[in-house]
């Protein structure tokens, strides 16, 4: 009302006040004609404001938060792999990866999805300045950098996995349009040690083989997400840690592997390869009482630190061309083929080793007794059905034990056929043949075991001495352990404990009995009988030093090549257990096609002895495996911060001085400097040692590419 009064002066009051109707009066009279529309206009603006800010507020708010915020993935730290005594086998190190944000160099850039983006003309000068500054630090031509800076993509990697020293140099330049993301690089401090078991990860940190692949989910953790504000050019403005999803770091796995035993085994394998030049050589060491795999190795060895070809390093998979992607896949496939874990992936006809199981079953079934004499027909026995069983050396009458010692095919076949085929088959199944062992390892084979209704007349006798079925080396060892440990078929396992990143134990794998295959008594009799293989039989080369009694069985199995048994090509193996009274180590050592057609007793048994002696020496000198040191895990003790002074002062290209440093810090510094560390195991002494005693090359010398920095550890 007041407004109305104010606005209609011409109509009432002023006329009386001014009292003089003149031309100028007209202006006052016409004022409401203007004032009213202006107020209506202002009122429309108020209505529009209310409409936008009250009624449409939520729509615009969600639109705003959509364009203002970007979810930044925060990578979790991949869990460690440790051996049974806590020594690191695989660790993840935080490194910085440099990427650029090309829209920052396009002044007219407008964001959008895919084709919707508008790029406009780039600001070449600004990009050139950045490229010129980056090029000398990255040691790549400025042209290459410039091309990346101006690439019409919202995100381009420039260099991944950069050490903190280099990263902080670049950060200090405060360059426009380039930023860092933390990434984790997998490092295997023991180099090729246990490489097939551990496997490796690809550049994006996904496990490709072995434990890294099987337990990828637990190791990887869960990525978090940070909601970060960004500006219209896509630059991140991280003002506070506003997690929409908190990252969960990966779990750390404590393996059953003992790195010292693993080292002893790998050395023996190398020696075996040197001496008899087999196609492959591999060995598994297990604790027969628990099923824990203490060591598992096969040739050829590889270094999981250097898997990915250099050309694929600085880019993410999405930017590869189709050809490159194909090449990378082929590379990985080739790598996988070369990195086959033979003990679990190969299947073969077990040959002589099988006699142990045949005789153990027959003994359990009371079809034969110790000392019983079997006529071995002088080395040639016509079974009928077209099968003639032969022995390498002809024997007449052999006792039960002697059949094992001399590895007589005829003896084994004769004892085997005493059993009912169904019973025979049942025992084979109970020993685990034809089934996966439960190790849960990628590529594991179950072998091949026909059911009795598909057996021909000659199947049972040939199976008794190890042909007509195929098995994996691990199956044989697990079954052998059952014979040795009192008849229990154990489930083999590789992961003892799983800890979260705070050191809390999440899971503990305990020994699991799958079957009671044979009785304690039969097992004891078999142990006793098998001792003679080493003392009197085919494996005299396997006799251990220091009076340690062992028992075992040689195996020489014909290789099937193109569907035919080929003379002169076999698998030579030795499966042995020690100490004999209460076996703690069970081992299978195999050579695939050794030169000159050598037999298990001649080539595999000496290597068994070498490993066995090494383990017994380690046992008496070093820590007993019962000891369980404090494994308080903490990923935080790892020097990850780029402000860590010591790390920043590492000079790139020179061997850093890491003497008297903890192993982890030493590895970190060597990697920062651009080298690859290699921890030398020296038998037992290494087990408790965590401080670097010696290094080679000397500190301060130039790093040679491809040549590892060797570290020798000592006790703290």
């Amino acid at each position, binding site marked *: 009302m007041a407004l109305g009064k*104010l606005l209609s002066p011409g109509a009432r009051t002023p006329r009386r006040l001014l009292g003089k109707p003149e*031309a100028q009066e007209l202006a006052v009279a016409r004022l409401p004609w203007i*004032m009213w529309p202006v107020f209506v206009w202002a009122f429309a*603006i108020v209505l529009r404001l209310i409409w936008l800010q009250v009624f449409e*507020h939520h729509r*615009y708010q969600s639109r705003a938060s959509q364009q203002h915020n970007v979810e930044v993935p925060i990578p979790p730290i991949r869990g460690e792999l440790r051996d049974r005594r806590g020594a690191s086998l695989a660790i993840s190190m935080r490194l910085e990866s440099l990427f650029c944000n090309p829209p920052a160099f396009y002044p007219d850039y407008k964001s959008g999805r895919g084709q919707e983006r*508008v790029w406009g003309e780039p600001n070449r000068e600004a990009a050139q300045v950045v490229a010129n500054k980056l090029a000398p630090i990255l040691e790549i031509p400025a042209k290459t950098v410039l091309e990346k800076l101006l690439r019409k993509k919202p995100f381009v990697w420039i260099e991944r996995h950069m050490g903190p020293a280099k990263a902080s140099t670049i950060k200090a330049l405060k360059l426009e349009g380039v930023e860092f993301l933390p990434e984790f690089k997998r490092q295997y401090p023991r180099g090729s040690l246990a490489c097939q078991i551990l496997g490796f990860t690809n550049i994006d940190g996904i496990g490709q083989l072995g434990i890294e692949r099987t337990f990828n989910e637990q190791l990887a953790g869960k990525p978090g997400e940070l909601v970060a504000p960004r*500006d219209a050019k896509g630059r991140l403005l991280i003002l506070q840690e506003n997690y929409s999803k908190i990252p969960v770091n990966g779990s750390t796995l404590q393996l059953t592997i003992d790195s010292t035993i693993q080292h002893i085994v790998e050395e023996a394998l190398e020696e075996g390869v040197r001496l008899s030049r087999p196609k492959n050589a591999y060995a598994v060491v297990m604790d027969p009482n628990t099923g824990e795999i203490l060591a598992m190795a096969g040739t050829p060895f590889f270094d999981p630190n250097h898997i990915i070809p250099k050309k694929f390093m600085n880019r993410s998979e999405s930017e590869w061309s189709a050809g490159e992607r194909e090449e990378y896949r082929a590379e990985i496939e080739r790598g996988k083929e070369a990195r086959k874990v033979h003990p679990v992936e190969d299947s073969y006809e077990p040959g002589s080793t099988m006699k142990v199981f045949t005789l153990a079953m027959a003994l359990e079934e009371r079809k034969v007794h110790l000392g019983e004499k079997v006529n071995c027909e002088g080395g040639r026995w016509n079974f009928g059905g077209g099968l003639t069983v032969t022995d390498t050396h002809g024997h007449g009458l052999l006792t039960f034990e002697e059949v094992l010692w001399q590895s007589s095919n005829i003896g084994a076949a004769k004892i085997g056929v005493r059993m009912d085929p169904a019973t025979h088959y049942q025992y084979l199944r109970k020993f685990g043949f034809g089934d996966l062992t439960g190790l849960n390892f990628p590529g594991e084979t179950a072998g091949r075991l026909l059911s009795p209704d598909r057996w021909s007349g000659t199947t049972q006798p040939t199976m008794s001495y190890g042909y007509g079925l195929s098995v994996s080396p691990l199956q044989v060892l697990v079954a052998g352990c059952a014979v040795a440990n009192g008849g229990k078929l154990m489930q083999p396992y590789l992961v003892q404990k799983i800890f979260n990143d705070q050191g809390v134990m999440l899971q503990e794998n305990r020994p699991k009995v799958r079957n009671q295959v044979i009785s304690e008594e039969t097992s004891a009799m078999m142990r006793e009988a098998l001792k003679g293989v080493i003392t009197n039989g085919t494996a005299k080369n396997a006799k251990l030093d220091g009076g340690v009694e062992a028992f075992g069985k040689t195996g020489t199995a014909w290789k099937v090549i193109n569907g035919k048994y080929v003379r002169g090509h076999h698998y030579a193996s030795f499966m042995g257990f020690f100490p004999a009274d209460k076996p703690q180590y069970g081992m299978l050592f195999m050579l695939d096609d050794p030169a000159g057609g050598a037999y298990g007793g001649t080539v595999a048994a000496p290597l068994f002895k070498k490993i066995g002696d090494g383990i017994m020496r380690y046992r008496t000198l070093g820590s007993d495996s019962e000891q369980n040191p404090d494994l308080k895990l903490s990923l935080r003790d790892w020097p990850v911060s780029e402000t860590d002074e010591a790390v920043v002062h590492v000079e790139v290209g020179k061997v850093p001085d890491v003497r008297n440093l903890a192993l982890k810090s030493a590895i970190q510094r060597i990697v920062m400097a651009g080298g690859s560390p290699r921890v030398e195991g020296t038998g037992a002494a290494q087990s408790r040692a965590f401080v670097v005693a010696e290094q080679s090359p000397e500190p301060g010398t130039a790093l040679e590419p491809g040549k590892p920095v060797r570290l020798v550890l000592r006790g703290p």
Partner: protein
Amino acid sequence: MSPDVRRPIDRLLLFFALMLMVVGMVWIYSASAIKASQNNAAATAFLVRQMIGGFIGLSLMLALSQVDLTDLREHPRPLQILYCVSILGLLAVFAFPPVNHAHRWVRIFGQSIQPSELFKPLAVLIASWWMVKHREAWGQRQDAIPKLVTLMGILIIPLGLILKEPDFGTTFLIVFVTMLVVFLGGAPRWIFAIAVPVLGAVGAAFVVTSPYRLARVTSFLNPEADPLGKGHQTLQSLVAVGNGGLLGVGLGAGRQKLFFLPEAHTDFIYAVIGEEAGLVGSVLVLVLFLAVLIRGYRIARRVRDAFLRLCAMGFTLLLVVQALMNMSVVLSLAPNKGIPLPFISYGSSSLIASLASLGLLLSISKETGE
């Protein structure tokens, strides 16, 4: 007729205008700090320049508030001189390199001056003077038309130059406010009945013949149609205002100014205010402009002299109509014309011109009528 007694200046008007200026300083800093930093300048770079402009403007305002405009009635020489200077200035802009494809600035003594901004108050003075000088003519049809055509002739030279810059928004504003002054000055109504449709048709033809202007108009009608192209600015402005809600996201906390919203500290500063101060803040700014309108209206109504009355109303409308136009653009009620928000938008020429208009308005406020 009451005796000619000088009053003190209208302090409320001054207060409202200064409030608007303070609001402007606050939000120029808020909207430009990051942009300035990105340009490797101090965060306060834009604020400091605006403060220098404000200082010059306030000095000019104080000086002009002491001027007695009644003298102009009999001695229009200063108007003629200023008119010639304006034309020279408007010609001079073409000698300088274009900024954002437009010749709007003249650089003297390291300071950028926008002659078109300074011409705004002068256009009001010229129109008012002309309307009062020839007030006898408005009664007769045969006299009115030549006089108005002459006025058009006087104004068409500078307006043509401004249009050539190109600066359609300022041209439109000056034409609009001048027409209001002509209307208030007593021009016969039938003239508007003819002039408004004719000017409308000319304007429409002008828009349609230029794809750039046509795009601006169509994008205003449907900003979502081309969210990244022509409709980008309009849409981002609406997102800013809409995101503000009732109380806003908080001073300095707005995100649209982070290069989502073009011209955040100049033509679209009202959107930043809308985002950061919400409905409450946006309406308060509008109310301040309406308060300026009401004070200006009071001054105009009270003053006895017809010339001063027209001037007072002209200056008031110049400030308020410009503000409403700017807000309408920000709220997508009108096509994007590129005119700043008086007292608030960054730009020292605009601020100086607004303060000069205010100074003259204040000088008129000292005159009494009753």
